[in-house]
């Protein structure tokens, strides 16, 4: 492919997405179900065994049990989500604790510009700290008003809806501030370091 000329596929007309295309990022299509994607089997984490740790590098800042965490201020967030496998789902309703409120409870300002989110299954994903604060992201505990099911990342998943959905780490158990932008699990395996769906940053080094 040279330049920006689009190659038309012979005989393809496509199934038109319904109204609201301006909400569908390039290369995405509208999905009404809620497909499940993950690198391994679904871990089943009991809330008794759940905890959430905030760290600065190797140093823990604060750790919450399930009871402590779910007592933090809860916020509702209804957002469109965009999976790198090309589906977009409109108006997904979540409830959880804003990263701002987690930091406030710990009594800290973000100490570095980069963050790694960690999960119970060993998965991690990196997100610039500025993409997590000022109301942009939360640790979600409820989906459609009900506890998030294990296959969708329950008991708690990170929600960073403005980035491709692999950044919204399932089974999240901590945020770690890092000095550098350290690639996480998928970012080390060919996926983009930032993952903006509107710029189609799917794979490593997409502009």
């Amino acid at each position, binding site marked *: *492919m040279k330049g920006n000329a*689009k*190659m*038309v*596929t*012979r*005989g*393809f*007309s*496509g*199934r*038109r997405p319904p109204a609201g295309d301006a909400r569908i990022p*390039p*290369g995405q*299509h509208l999905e009404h*179900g809620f*497909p*499940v*994607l*993950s*690198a*391994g*089997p*679904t*871990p089943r984490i009991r809330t008794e065994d759940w905890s959430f740790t905030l760290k600065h590098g190797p140093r823990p800042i604060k750790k919450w049990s399930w009871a402590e965490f779910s007592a933090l201020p809860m916020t509702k967030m209804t957002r469109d989500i965009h999976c790198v*496998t*090309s*589906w977009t789902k409109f108006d997904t309703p979540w409830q959880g604790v804003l990263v701002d409120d987690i930091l406030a409870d710990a009594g800290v300002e973000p100490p570095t510009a980069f963050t790694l989110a960690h999960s119970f*299954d*060993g998965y991690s994903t990196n997100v610039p700290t500025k993409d997590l604060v000022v109301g942009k992201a939360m640790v979600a505990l409820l989906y459609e008003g009900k506890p998030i099911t294990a*296959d969708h990342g329950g008991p708690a998943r990170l929600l960073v809806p403005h980035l491709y959905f692999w950044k919204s780490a399932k089974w999240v158990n901590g945020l770690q501030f890092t000095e*550098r*932008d*350290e*690639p996480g*699990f*998928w970012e*080390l*395996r*060919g996926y983009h*370091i*930032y993952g903006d769906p509107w710029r189609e940053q799917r*794979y*490593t*080094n*997409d*502009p």
Partner: protein
Amino acid sequence: MSEPTAPQSPWQTATIARILRRTPRVVSFFLQPLQPFAYRAGQHIDVKLTAPDGYEARRSYSIASAPEAGEQVEVAIERLDDGEVSPFFHDVAAVGDEIEVRGPLGGHFVWPEGDQGPILLVGGGSGVVPLASMARHRAALSSKVPVVLVYSARTWDEVVFRDELIELDRRGDGFSLALALTREGARRPADHSRRIDLAMVAQSIAYFPSPPGVAFVCGSNAFVTAASQAMIDAGVPARIIRTERYGV
């Protein structure tokens, strides 16, 4: 971190060089990319179809061919009757057509480099595709690593790559195939006529000289969830299980 390097696997044009029906619902397309690329068994490509008005549809397809197979990349596409892209491939695409592709993609669901012990492969329906690439790769390498492929299909006629997989099994060099037919009786002694369950996984891994070092599961989300649970119940550690979910 963001060094100013070229995008990984940029979009390019590939020509459909050959079309081969595999089963009533699965057809293989052999794609000749303008810029041939190396890949690892288990990786996938993305394809992009563009309508005259600029509307685009994009989907992922696992690579079925072995990395050693030459420049043409085989994908095997199952027809979902009410789908957008798979019926296009089945009903419209013809030899000589150009399709936009990018690949190889994916760095987790890939045949391990170096010896990691026996390998368990579990596939459902078209989820066998990347596992077939792995089986072909193993054969091309003359690798002796013990591999069991447990493959669930509805019927004998819907077993994609059936004759080839049975032939690989017959070689007796450490690759074995167990078919789980869910709507028909078993035909080979190693086969079953039920869904994949704990007992079936246990029987398959008992064949290994040592516990599996890596396990791959691929298919629909429901299949992957059920099969990986059966594997965990049979004692396969969750941390060695790698999954590829085809979505709905």
